[in-house]
């Protein structure tokens, strides 16, 4: 009921509503004398009401459809669907992985990726930081990346290797699909790709919090940043915290900030997490680190695991994707499809 947006008295409002005028659009095409008669208010009052209604209608509505929203900044679902469909995803360079992710890593969302050491989390992080830079002509976002390294796993030589392979793939694509060499010449060099990754090294949890607080300002100055990778978000929080409640508060505050960043700047946030053992009923189970309260804070959750000799990714939690797992491999060129011949996507 948008009537209560109008600056009119409660009794007038009550009279309007009982006469059946609940939306501003219903007031848009009525004359003041009709309104006065229907809702039993005086003519001058009806005139004022219509004046207020037309003001709100013209001033407040930024939405293309006729309906105004009750609160500033709220959107209706139809507009959100349009926006969602137009978002490009960040590819992981593995078609199978992209498939179960619905095209790739989603922008405007926080994706958490966790797994045991050596499964390929850092590799995936570097691959995403490189792939976000794929130009629009090749279906990418043409953006820059922020890489927050808390463990020291980022190796420049490996990033260079992955960047070279990415450019190599784009040239291959050029040759086979496009055929018009002049128009789509790849001007990117591997060192350009490295230059577009803003790399921060963090050595304590206080530095981590400070940096994440600073990101808002940083990204406002570098509007082409389209992904923030944190590798790993857990490391500095697994030390002794005297007050575990403090740790939970700090972590949820951090998660909230990252989510706001993702929505405000339409970028993707990728958080890499470690795996720990959870002691339940006498047996040990594997779970992502940082506890139960943290597991609620991320939009999407992907678990990387070994299945025999193959690396698999499993969608553990997602509002829009179904649970599925896909195999992938880590090659000298980066993340690619698994090379086994019987790879198939298992739907749960």
């Amino acid at each position, binding site marked *: 009921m948008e009537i209560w947006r109008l600056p009119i008295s409660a009794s007038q409002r009550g009279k309007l509503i009982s006469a059946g005028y609940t939306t501003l659009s219903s007031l848009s095409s009525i004359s003041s004398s009709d309104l006065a008669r229907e809702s039993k208010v005086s003519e001058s009052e009806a005139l004022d009401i219509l004046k207020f209604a037309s003001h709100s209608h013209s001033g407040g509505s930024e939405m293309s459809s006729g309906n105004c929203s009750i609160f500033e900044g709220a959107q209706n679902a139809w507009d959100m669907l349009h926006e969602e469909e137009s978002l490009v995803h960040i590819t992981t360079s593995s078609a199978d992985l992209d498939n179960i992710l619905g095209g790739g890593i989603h922008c405007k969302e926080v994706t958490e990726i966790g797994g045991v*050491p*050596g499964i390929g989390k850092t590799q995936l992080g570097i691959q995403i930081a490189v792939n976000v830079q794929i130009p629009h002509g090749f279906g990418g976002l043409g953006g820059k990346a922020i890489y927050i390294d808390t463990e020291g*796993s980022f*190796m420049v030589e490996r990033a260079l290797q992955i960047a070279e392979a990415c450019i190599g793939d784009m040239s291959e694509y050029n040759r086979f699909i496009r055929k018009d060499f002049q128009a789509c010449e790849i001007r990117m060099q591997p060192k350009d790709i490295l230059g577009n990754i803003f*790399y921060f090294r963090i*050595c304590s949890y206080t530095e981590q919090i400070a940096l994440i607080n600073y990101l808002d300002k940083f990204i406002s100055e570098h509007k082409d940043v389209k992904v923030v990778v944190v590798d790993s978000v857990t*490391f500095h929080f697994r030390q002794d915290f005297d007050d575990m409640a403090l740790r939970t508060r700090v972590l949820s505050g951090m998660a909230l900030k990252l989510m706001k960043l993702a929505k405000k700047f339409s970028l993707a946030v990728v958080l890499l997490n470690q795996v720990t053992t959870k002691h339940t009923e006498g*047996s040990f189970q594997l779970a992502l680190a940082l506890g139960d309260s943290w597991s609620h804070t991320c939009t999407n959750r992907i678990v990387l695991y070994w299945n025999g000799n193959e690396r698999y990714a499993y969608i553990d939690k997602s509002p829009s994707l179904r649970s599925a797992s896909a195999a992938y491999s880590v090659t000298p060129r980066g993340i690619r499809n698994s090379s086994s011949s019987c790879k198939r996507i298992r739907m749960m």
Partner: protein
Amino acid sequence: MISQNLLQSTTQKCTTGCPILDRLLRGGIPCDSITEIVAESGSGKTQICLQLSLHAQLPVSHGGLSASALYLHTEFPFPFRRLHQLSLSFRSSNARHLPCNDNPCDRVYVQSVHSADELLEIMSKTESFIESSKTQLPVRLIVIDSIAALFRSEFDNTPVELKRRSSLFFKISSMLKALARRFNLAVLLTNQVVDMVGPNEGINGLRIGNLGCLYTSGRRVCPALGLAWANCVNSRLFLSRHEEVNREENGKLIGESGGFVCKQTRRKLYVVFAPHLPESSCEFVITREGLFGVEITAC
């Protein structure tokens, strides 16, 4: 806060002293990173550590770090004689590159550590030690041999104690990484192995890294200190050894009169996980001059 310019950063590496091993490791042990060597006793962990401590003194142009090494040892006694033996061959093969005529052993600072808390204490003093060493050959390699010995006996097997032990892992790892970052050090740790007896050892049977199972001396093993510690290191290397029996040494089979058994130790170095290395392995031997990779050529 300023982001680092990646174009101007290259990871420095410390050579192992053997070109074959260096090729496997893409240059050697990286700086600003923690590398862990996992093996059972007698596999060569300490040998590699001693060898690296000496080769760190080489100039950067020859793969070294132009640096001295801080060697923290937890198992006793420290092999002084072996270090001396290695330093002789090191000096003779690298005489032209070494800056002056003193004993390379003088550039290896040895400190014994007896417990995890003592390690934490030493870590806080290490900062000032490294600062003060900048005037001569600065310390740019820290070796801890072995990290496992500090934790194996101190903690009970209750969830509370194990959690406390895990927190200690992360605290130590965090301090080492902060030091490595601040002074651009290479950190090398050694770790022991534990046996895996049953087919499915629960959490110990969890696969970490490129190798499904680690075998040494015919036993299935896994690295000590568990999953939590595995999250604290950047790279992990595994050394395996197994005795190979040569059946015919003098033309007669074992069991026949006059035939004798010749055993040969085959040693292999594997990359379990590393952010910059693919899955790979190579064989190596340990001689008086040190530890060297060998290339197996098919005959």
